[in-house]
């Protein structure tokens, strides 16, 4: 279900690690939970992010969800296109729907994240609440 090449957080963000760069976004599960995304607030390039701390937020019509950084590092690129059309995130959160690219300051933190199989289990237990 969830792409195997990605790592996941309990709060449903993913990171794609490409060398020293991490690409952050949210999983398909998170997209399904929010339903209609109307706005995504993202940090500016150059912002320092800390793993586990908020780096932005996602809004539906009547709710706000914080986005938590999977890993620490400095934002190098921001996907501005998704605010013009949040549908990009809804349709394909892993490709067009990426949010920020981050120069990782401590790639070893990735060891604490879940792989796709563990994340799958996490989602299933959460769904049963």
């Amino acid at each position, binding site marked *: 279900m969830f792409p195997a090449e990605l790592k996941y957080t309990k709060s449903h963000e993913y990171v794609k690690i490409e060398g020293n760069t991490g690409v952050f976004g949210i999983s398909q599960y998170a997209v399904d939970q929010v339903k209609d995304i*109307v*706005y995504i607030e993202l940090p500016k390039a150059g912002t320092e992010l800390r793993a586990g701390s908020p780096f932005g937020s996602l*809004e539906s019509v009547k709710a706000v969800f914080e986005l938590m950084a999977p890993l620490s590092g400095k934002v190098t690129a921001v996907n501005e296109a998704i605010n013009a059309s*949040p549908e990009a995130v809804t349709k394909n959160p892993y490709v067009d729907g990426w949010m920020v690219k981050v120069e990782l300051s401590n790639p070893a933190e990735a060891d604490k994240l879940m792989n796709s199989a563990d994340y799958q289990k996490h989602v299933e237990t959460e769904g049963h609440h």
Partner: protein
Amino acid sequence: MELIFEKTKEGRKAYTLPEPAKCEPGVPDKYLRRNLTNLPEVSELQIVRHYTNLSKRNIGVDGNFYPLGSCTMKYNPKVNEDIAALPGFAKLHPLQKEEDVQGALKVMYELEDMLKEVSGMDAVTLQPAAGAHGEFTGLLIARAYHNSKGRTPTKVVVPDTSHGTNPSSAHIAGYHVVTVKSKDGNMDIEDLKAHLNEDTAVFMITNPNTLGLFEKNIEEIAKLVHDAGALMYMDGANFNAIMGVTRPGDFGVDIMHFNLHKTFATPHGGGGPGSGPVGVKGHLAEFLPVPVVRKKGETYSLDSNLPKSIGKVKAFYGNFSIMLRAYCYLRMIGCEGIRKVSEMAVLNANYMKELLKKHYNLPYDKICKHEFVLSINTFKESGVRALDIAKRLLDYGYHPPTIYFPLIVDEAFMLEPTETEDKETLDLFVETLIRIKQEIQDSPDTVKNAPLNTPVKRLDEVTAARNPVLKYEKKR
């Protein structure tokens, strides 16, 4: 419907103005506006038709039962409107000399007195313009009080059933917000204890709470709060339930706000203006906003000489014409009526609750105060939610209850009938809700597609928020 701008015809005018003095306007060229505005060009009758027709696309308490929980949509007496419109009240400038506005100052002074008496508080400011504004004012008073004692606690504790304004006001007053859990519809005392310490500035309570239940451990709660060195704030949004029965000042509240636009029968105006006076116990009176109204002999004055005052939270003295309406209301019901108002509000709520609990899920089945909360979570099969029933009620000519609040109730449906509604109205409303339940069984889509008889149907709110169109732009 067309916007007023779309009725424009170049050169058409509604206004008449007196001849100006024979003198140039005197504003130098560099300060002049270059282009005219695109305000509409319409006749007076067009304006009258337009806004009259718009009024038909709106409902209010005067035309429709409006059991909107936590909002106390009671009848707004007409005489109050007439009195507020008297030139001797409406056409007063706030910077007139005190001796020229003695009547207005008397109204303020006496309203303060009446609010003190009803609440058991020792001093009142009328300056805040709304409930949230009152919360902000009260929290600044608490901060000034702590500072005067050489303390700087940093957090405000709120229950998980609190109104959204509570944490929001605390944040703007510079505090961190901590949430306490509920248990069986009341405050979880153990959780409260865990959150109270020397760093707690204020505990904000709503009593009765937003489930419509009285916090019966209020004395213990007050003691815990005070022992921690904190102050107890009461959100007075639900004050309509307990007037003449018990007084916040007597159950340990240090600061509270009143919503004149809820409890004291002033109209909501389609969202405002309201008025949110704040009452405090004696030890906090020196921190109230300035000016305060004083009386010496038969003369009233405005006193700004309060060295420890928090300052001003609003220009001038507050929403005077709203205070005036509340004053009239209190004079009309008098000492004879004040408890009766709460008794009838609570009677109406309990009557409706008992009739409805046979048909809908009532998560907290106990005696309620002025409101109660149903949970619309028993129709999962048909997929009908609280929102759907609310929308279906619109078809039957009712304003629906508050939905999805408080947050701790699944599919919350919060009903507050108020005391001004008669038994027949409540009976019809209950019958309608029973009929809707039948509709859910027979034709759930009717309910899910409601409303069907309103000027517009359900709105596309996603597009509205994604690509906001916030003003009219002339098509060129």
